[in-house]
């Protein structure tokens, strides 16, 4: 155990910091759930790519830097420290990317990863179907093989970023006689293909953060299949593992929120009447730090060749509940001012209401926390299935 950074790691941090100081936009970008904001964020992805910062853990051949996970954590810390924009391509780089790395053919990797890292192609994810939700095995949309093509019919829902993205990755039923987890395949679909209709879904904040996608005899080349036909469930589970795991929920994000919460608390120090607010602020900070420490521990294990297990479900519960708690605590600190929209808030109070709405999705998506508790009990603790 050595909890100090090596000279190389420190040099890497310095390089990231210096590059970000020069390149991070001085004024915040518009939300990537608006058309203009989406394009601003795409531009930012291209800027990142220009410095080879698109996805530092990927091989250089695909636009990365071959960094290990500890370096990735350092990159993320500096990224949040710098207040850099959110990653509009997170479905691609954090979810599909690692999956492609494991299951993709060399051609697929070269084709997709490179354009992903460069910000040229932004990805949506298409996990859920109406009536399926956390039950991925209930998928009914089909992809029928016809010669060198798949013909796709059906519907996806809760597809994040789909409104403005270029591509979506989905699971379809390729064996029409199959049931539940069998006969599913993992397929890429360009969102401008004939027969694709995207219907935006407005979120709690009024912006279209996700969409329904309708497929009506959509034809894609058979090359768009990832892995083998019928292997879709297994690949999706691996992807979901990345999602639950550390990539998509960088500890730096929560540490940064906890830091902002402390600042907000200090700024209101003299008016606080709430008898338990100090305790909540302290708890939030400690939990954010515990999540960071835990991630470093996991990263150390992975760097040494270990793997992620069912304890990743603990992560999902922990960060999602922490995120809600931090925002609830901030709103308590803001008191009657909490309900104001950002445009009418003073600077130190901005972002909390939006962040709160966003945090409420945490315990729901990527497998609801109820499902995660089942997984922990059954797979980590070995309790019997119902």
């Amino acid at each position, binding site marked *: 155990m050595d909890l100090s950074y090596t000279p190389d790691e420190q040099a890497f941090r310095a390089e990231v910091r210096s590059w970000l100081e020069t390149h991070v936009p001085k004024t915040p970008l518009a939300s990537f759930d608006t058309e203009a904001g989406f394009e601003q964020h795409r531009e930012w992805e291209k800027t990142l790519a220009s410095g080879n910062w698109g996805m530092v853990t990927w091989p250089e051949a695909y636009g990365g830097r071959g960094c290990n996970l500890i370096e990735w954590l350092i990159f993320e810390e500096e990224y949040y420290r710098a207040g850099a924009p959110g990653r509009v391509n997170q479905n691609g780089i954090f979810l599909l990317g690692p999956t492609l790395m494991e299951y993709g053919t060399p051609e697929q990797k070269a084709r997709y990863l490179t354009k992903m890292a460069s910000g040229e192609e932004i990805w949506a994810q298409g996990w*859920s179907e109406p*009536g*399926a*939700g*956390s*039950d991925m095995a*209930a998928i009914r949309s089909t992809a029928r093989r016809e010669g060198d093509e798949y013909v796709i019919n059906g519907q996806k*829902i*809760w597809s994040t970023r789909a409104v403005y993205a270029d591509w979506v990755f989905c699971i379809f039923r390729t064996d029409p006689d199959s049931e539940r987890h069998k006969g599913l395949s993992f397929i890429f679909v360009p969102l401008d293909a004939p027969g694709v209709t995207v219907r935006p*879904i*407005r*979120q*709690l904040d*009024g912006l279209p953060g*996700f969409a329904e996608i309708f497929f009506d005899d959509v034809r894609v080349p058979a090359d768009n299949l990832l892995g083998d036909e019928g292997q879709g469930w297994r690949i999706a589970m691996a992807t979901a593992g990345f999602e639950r795991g550390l990539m998509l929920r960088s500890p730096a994000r929560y540490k940064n929120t906890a830091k902002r919460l402390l600042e907000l608390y200090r700024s209101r120090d003299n008016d*606080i*009447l*709430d*008898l338990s*607010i100090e305790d909540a602020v302290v708890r939030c900070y400690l939990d954010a730090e515990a999540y960071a420490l835990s991630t470093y521990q996991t990263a150390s294990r992975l760097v040494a060749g270990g793997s992620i297990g069912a304890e990743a479900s603990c992560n999902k519960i922990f960060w999602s509940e922490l995120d*809600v708690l931090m925002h609830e605590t901030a*709103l*308590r600190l803001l*008191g*009657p*001012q*909490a*309900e*104001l*929209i950002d*445009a*009418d808030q003073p600077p130190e109070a901005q972002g909390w*209401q939006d962040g709160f*709405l966003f945090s*409420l*999705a945490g*315990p*729901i*998506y990527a497998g*609801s*926390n*109820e499902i995660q*508790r089942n997984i922990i009990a059954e797979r980590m603790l070995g309790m019997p299935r119902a």
Partner: protein
Amino acid sequence: MDFSFSEEQLEFHNAVASMLRNEVTPERIRARWDTESGADAEVEKQIAEMGIPIMLVPEEQGGLGLTAVDIVLIAEAAGQVALPESIINDALVCAPLLAELALDNERCAQLLPQLLAGKIRLGVGHLINPYINFGADRDWFILPQGDEVHLVARDEVMLTPVGSVDPSRRLVRVDWTASEKSCVASGNYGAKLWRAALNRGALGAAAQLAGLAQGMIERAVNYSMDREQFGKAIGSFQAVKHLMADCATRLEFARPPLYRSAYTVSVAAERADYAISHAKVATGEAALLAARNAMQVHGAMGYTWECDLQIWMKHAWALDKAWGDAGFHKNRVHQWLLREGALTGPEYSFGRQDEELSYA
């Protein structure tokens, strides 16, 4: 000792609740969102016809002479349908305050009949609320300057709209200048009026929060019975049941303090701080928990603009922090409990009886 509502109270509540269920639908609330005023004239008319805005004004001044106990179930019913809130404030805060002032101020006495007749609208500012909801459509304002109470006309103030997360609300910031002429009460009398206004305002918010909690529980339970996952209704999963049972339990024990506080305001308004603060804390918690768990039960659906749950949730978030947030009210309770001679034994659930429900 009788901790129950009268037949008349229950019947009036039923009539109002039934009207509200019919008239205040999610569709009609959404229709208001796109309007500048945020109002629904038809609903306001029906509510006015039922006499709700003037319930608490004494009969001898032209009101109905009813009490907070008579109105608490009405306010709860308003919360249950997520009625965009102005009427409850009008009835609990604005009208009684003007009526009280009218007893010994000529300007107020002249205004009161116009208010009762629905010819003018009155907005009340209070130091505890930074903004006035539905302030833009008011003709007159009663505003605080320290302990002083001022009455000013619409053209003497500057109103700036500010946006709320709850699209049903229409907040305005009021900028104005106090003058000797505008002052209608001051000193201890002014302080007493402001304290009473705060307690009545908090009572209205608390009652609506209880109703909002009930409304969210109902919506989530219904959703859980329609929605299937893993081949069965999600409402049959124990985890989902327990989320809802926890909400129901919190609400079950928020209502008795709510009704007690309404009674206390009615019989000893000047000593109602403690009872009101208990009610506001308990109902706020019940509503926030209901919002959180109802959201979780709704899953991704609850996160959409299309889902009506947001109407209730956002209203609950706003009201939880209106008329004193949980911090303010818990602190008031804390001060009360810790002062010398506080009556805290098992025999004092209703205060010292020889002083008629005193928490002083």
